[in-house]
Structures are given as C-alpha cells and as structure tokens.
C-alpha cells in the first residue's frame, strides 16, 4: 500500500486551471497572473469552496520554486488580536521581494473575519503602507464582517458552495484513483451531508475507507463503498443523539434531556456553538416536527446561539435552551389538545 496521505491535501489542485467549480473566479485570477499586476483580494465563502486552494495555486504559478519565500500564510483565528497584524505581517512586509518578474509578495490571511475591529483597522493601514511590495489576500466566511474600508481596497470574490455535478466529478475521480467502487446512492448521501463543502465531502469519503472491507463485484480490484459506510461515518461525526435530546425536551422530560446533553458534549468534545448549529440542522431536517414548531425551535436556537457567543459557560446556556424547548413542547401539547376539542 502506498504511503498514507490526507486526501484533502493529496488531491488539492496545484494549478489554477485544475481548481473545480469556481470557473469565473479562476479566469480572473489567471488574468492577474498574466498581467503581473493585481489588487488586494478578498475571498468570501463558506469552508471547503476553494479559497485556500485557489490562493495556493495562484501563488505557486506566480513564484514557481520561490513560492515559499514570497508568501506568508496566516490564520487570524489562531492568533487572534492585533499582535499578529503588528508583528508577523510587519516583519514579512518590510523586506523586499526576491523574484524578477513579480514585483510584489503575497500575504494570505485566512479567517480574516476572526480579527477584531481594531486589528482590522491596523491591517488597513498596513495595506496602505506596504502596497508598493505586498498584496494581501484575505479569506473569510462572510464579507460583511470585514470593515468597509478594507472591502473598498479589495477586489471581492465570492466563492459559491460546490455544485452537485462538480462535487460528483471530483469525488468520483478520487474514487478511481483510490480504487474504490462508490455506489451512486452513497455519492448522493455524501453530497447531502457535505452541504456544498468539498473538504467535508473528501473527509467523509476518506473516513469510509476505514470500514470498507468488501471487494467490489462489478469492478475487480476495487473496494466497495455503499450508503451504509457513509451513513456510519456521518452519524459518528454528527451525533444523532442531539435529536433524541430535543425529543426528550419537547416531551417534558427536562432532566433527562439536560443530563444526556452534557454527556454528549463531553463524549464528542462538542462546543456549545457546534451543538446549537447541530440542533438547528436537525430541527430543520426533521420529518416529524410541524412547521409551526420548527419555526419556534429555530428562533430559540438563534437566541441561544447568540447567548453562547456572549456568555462564558456553554453548559448553562445550553441548559437554558433546553428549558426553552421544554416550555415550547408543553405549550404545543396544550394547543394540540385544545384544537382537538
């Protein structure tokens, strides 16, 4: 067996022309390379849509072997605050570029929307100061979280969620390469679970190989991956216990729902924000909840999503959410009884 690799890296395109699903953006980026001039860039879009990949491919095409000397890759969310802007960027931006044909260096700032407002203002000044030899490429989930003065200095590129046909093409070509016979129902399930996030799709797919143990009948020399394997991976990564917790809460069993929730949080190492976003997904996709109930529950998710971000103890906030669910459940039981009379 060949050396183990993470597929998201192994199959990360190294040329712009190979980046899938963002054709218009890729065309414009290629034009920048040809003209050897470029404004600051702002890449907006959810995770797994190709922001980092496009940047890396572009940088490699620009600088070739000198790529590492001319590119600074930073994560705003890991070293939050103004220090990152002040020190790392300053040191890098201060030195002159070493390539002959490209007159500037590149700084890629991932998750730029995690920077505080103050840090963003400092960043803005730096974008001005070093324009002669540095171009910034900022990446974020929501461009609205970037202060307007930065937005106005950047060419904004919006990365769309990966379309089904594109995701299918990528996943199936990985399947060919890795000698896997992927059922088309399994492919559909991966697409639904990934929600337009190609990185997630590849991670799910790779995890299925840990449990795929049946050789394929139709394509010799390959392993078969069916919807069963995919389902097992997805339910491991996105615990269905949360749905049961919701139902416990709605049925008036507050204590049970609360106890189970804290167990699940510890078991999976989930954060409060993760738990709420999972709750929200499961409510929306539920086939038993009535629409009226769904809306009430989603509104409550919104309230506690906010409270979790403002508070310090996620257990307390989540239990407060469950107390709300408990009340919503009680009220809807009464209403149903009244309307039956």
């Amino acid at each position, binding site marked *: 067996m060949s050396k183990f690799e993470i597929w998201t890296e192994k199959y990360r395109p190294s040329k712009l022309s190979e980046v899938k699903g963002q054709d218009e953006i890729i065309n414009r980026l290629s034009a920048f390379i040809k003209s050897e001039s470029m404004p600051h860039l702002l890449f907006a879009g959810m995770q797994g849509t190709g922001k980092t990949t496009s940047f890396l491919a572009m940088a490699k095409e620009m600088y070739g072997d000198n790529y590492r000397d001319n590119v600074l890759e930073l994560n705003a969310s890991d070293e939050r605050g103004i220090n990152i802007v002040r020190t790392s960027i300053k040191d890098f931006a201060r030195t002159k570029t070493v390539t002959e044909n490209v007159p500037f260096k590149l700084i890629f700032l*991932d998750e730029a929307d995690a920077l505080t407002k103050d840090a963003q203002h400092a960043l803005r000044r730096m974008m001005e100061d070093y324009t002669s030899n540095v171009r910034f490429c900022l990446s974020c989930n929501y461009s609205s979280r970037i202060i307007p003065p930065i937005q106005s200095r950047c060419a904004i590129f919006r990365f769309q969620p990966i379309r089904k046909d594109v995701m299918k093409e990528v996943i199936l070509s990985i399947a060919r390469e890795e000698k896997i016979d992927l059922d088309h129902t399994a492919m559909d399930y991966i697409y639904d679970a990934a929600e337009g996030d190609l990185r997630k799709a590849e991670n799910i797919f790779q995890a299925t190989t840990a449990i795929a143990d049946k050789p394929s009948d139709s394509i010799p020399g390959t392993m078969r991956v069916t919807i069963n394997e995919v389902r097992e991976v997805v339910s491991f990564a996105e615990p269905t216990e949360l749905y049961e917790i919701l139902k416990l809460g709605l049925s008036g069993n507050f204590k049970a729902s609360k106890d189970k929730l804290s167990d699940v949080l510890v078991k999976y190492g989930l954060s409060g924000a993760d738990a709420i976003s999972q709750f929200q997904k499961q409510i929306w996709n539920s086939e038993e909840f009535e629409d009226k109930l769904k809306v009430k529950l989603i509104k409550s998710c919104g309230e506690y999503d906010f409270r979790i971000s403002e508070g310090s103890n996620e257990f*307390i906030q989540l239990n407060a959410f469950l107390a709300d669910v408990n009340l919503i459940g009680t009220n809807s039981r009464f209403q149903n009884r009244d309307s039956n009379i």
Partner: protein
Amino acid sequence: MLIKKYIPKKISEIVGQYAGITKLTNFVQRKSKNAAIIYGEPGVGKTLAVRVYASEIGYELYEIPPSSTRNKSRIMDQLKPATTQPSLLGDKKIILIDELESFSGSSDRGGITALIEIIKNTRYPIIITANDPWNSKYKTLRKYCELIKFNPVEYKSIERYLGKVSQLEKIEVDPIVLKKIAARSQGDVRSALTDLEVLSIQKDKIRNEDIYDLFREREESIFYAVKITLKSFDSKLALSTFSDVKVDSSEYTLWIDQNMYHEYLDPEALREGYINISDSDITRNRISKNQNWSLAYYANVSATAGVQQSKTEVSQTISTYRRPELMLKIFSLAAKRRKAKGISEQMSDKLHTSARSLIRDFYPYFNFIKEKNPKMGKELTKYLES
C-alpha cells in the same frame, strides 16, 4: 492573621521553593536578559520571593501591584522613568510587575508591545509574575524574558511548615489534620495557612473531625443560599445570603442549574429561571472581558433575586439539594478539547487550515478512522507527525 505574622524575612525561610529561588538570584546577579517571568500557581511564593530577596540584598524594589490602576498608559508613564532613572540606592533596583494577567487585561491595545519597549531599554532587572505565561498573546514577550518556574510546594514541606507554625502558636493539632490541610492545598502555602487559621479560631485543639468543617461549612452555607433563592420570595434576603457565602456568581449558577428543576416544576418558571442564570453568565463574561467589576452586582442579582422571582408559587416538595455535577463535566470537556486542540495545531500547517476549523471539520473523521481501523489510524498519525 497567620499569613502576615509568619511572613518570611529571609530567603531561606521561604517554604519549598529552593530551585526557583536559585534561578531568581542567578537572574538578578547575571542579568543575562533584561527581564524574567516567574510563573506558577497562586500561593507558591512568586511575589514573596522577589520582595524578600530584594530586601535581603539591600535593593530598592519598585513595585507595580495588580490592584493599582489598570490604565496602561499611566503604568507605562510610571515605568519609563522608574526603569531608566537611578535609584536612591545607586544602581540597586529591581522592578516588580505583579500578575501579568491583570496587568495586560484581555483586550490588548498595545500594552504588551509597550512593555517590551520598556524591557528593551531598562537599566534595572524587571521581574514579572504570572500564573500562565504560555498564552499566545505573550509569545513575543516571552522572547525577551527569562522564564522561571515556581513549582507547587511539596505537600511534605507544607505539612512540616504547618507543624512548625502550630507549635509556635501553641495550637494542639492532630497530625492527620496537618496532612489533610497540606493535601487539600495542592501546593498553595498561603491557602494552607489560612485553613489552619480558620480551624484554630476559638480553639486550642484541632481534632480530625474538625477538618470537615472546612469542606462542609462552605457547602452547607451554599445549600442554604440556594434554598432561599428557590424557596422564598424575599429578594433582599436572597442576595444577602448569597453574599455571605464565599462563592462567585459563575459557580452559583452551577448550583442553581443542579437544583432548580426539582423545585420549578412549572415550565414557564423554569425557563424564566434559566434566562436569569443565562443573563448572569453573560454579564460575568463581560466583566472578565473588560475587567469591569462594577457589573458584578448585576450578575449576582440575576443569579439570586432574578431566579427567585421567576416563580409564581413555591413548590411544596422537601428538597435535598445536591452539589453541581456539571463541574466535573466542565473539566472533562476542557481536557478533551485541549487534546483535540493539540492534535489540530500539529496539523494546522500541513493542512493549510486553522486549528479551530480543523477541530470542527477534520477531527471527527480522524477519530472515526482511529476508532474503527487502528492500523489506518496509526498510519494517519504517523503522516501527521512527519
């Protein structure tokens, strides 16, 4: 107070911190760097060692206490002359910045950068004390400082020290009590001495069963406060019984969380009660973000009177209140997260993704592979570590 009465006058009298103190004296004598950070748990003698050492060798100690103004620009204005102008005792001066954490606050408007400037230009050794200097915001600062660790004091040393103090105080103490206090202190001499003092109040003899007062008394008084909050309607009483107990609102919300649902059987009241502890938690977070302690009052009122007034009637059940089970869960969750974070930070560069989003987007699948297919899991780990 015993802590004041038995404060060491000489370096040799400080309990169980020999290695750290040697590093401290070396630092002051050799000045290989301009500054040092002494770090360790509370009560292990960080500040004390600096003070005692300075007076022992006849140095002037210029001290910036944690409780002084938190206004950074003012501190900097003080520090600049202090670090550059000669001392009354000639060149014999040490600058002590107590508690790095409270000095730099949580928002960092260049405070640390300014401090580094001061360190670069100082004529005198600067010593900073800290509980945890490994926070990433101190990354640059650490480069300019020698790091001196003060370990938790050996439990045997604390035991011996308590024995000595009780002899001097003429308190008769069951040896097992000294052991228990020492064990309970977890290396914190200050708190051990306080415990001994609490137990010896109005007593000349401390027996084994008395030690439980230390644990029980506090819990019972919290139980009482919880009872007032949940069972009565007098809001002044609720706030004041809470204030009598040595418990802060963030811990108190855990106690309420543990016990409220037995009493607030009406879903409306339960939800209202939870909104109040949720509010209290949010206010607490704002306090620690901005060090705005004047808000503490609101956090306390929400957690006590707020919860109390959420009900319309008092439940007739006779409740036995319980200790919050959440505390343990909070610890286990934090431990689990630290582990995930460690692995993710390792992978961050390799996968061109932040540790934060790796925890969310990659870690579950990594765990799946490790759990379902150990062989593949091992190869995956090897790949990530290479």
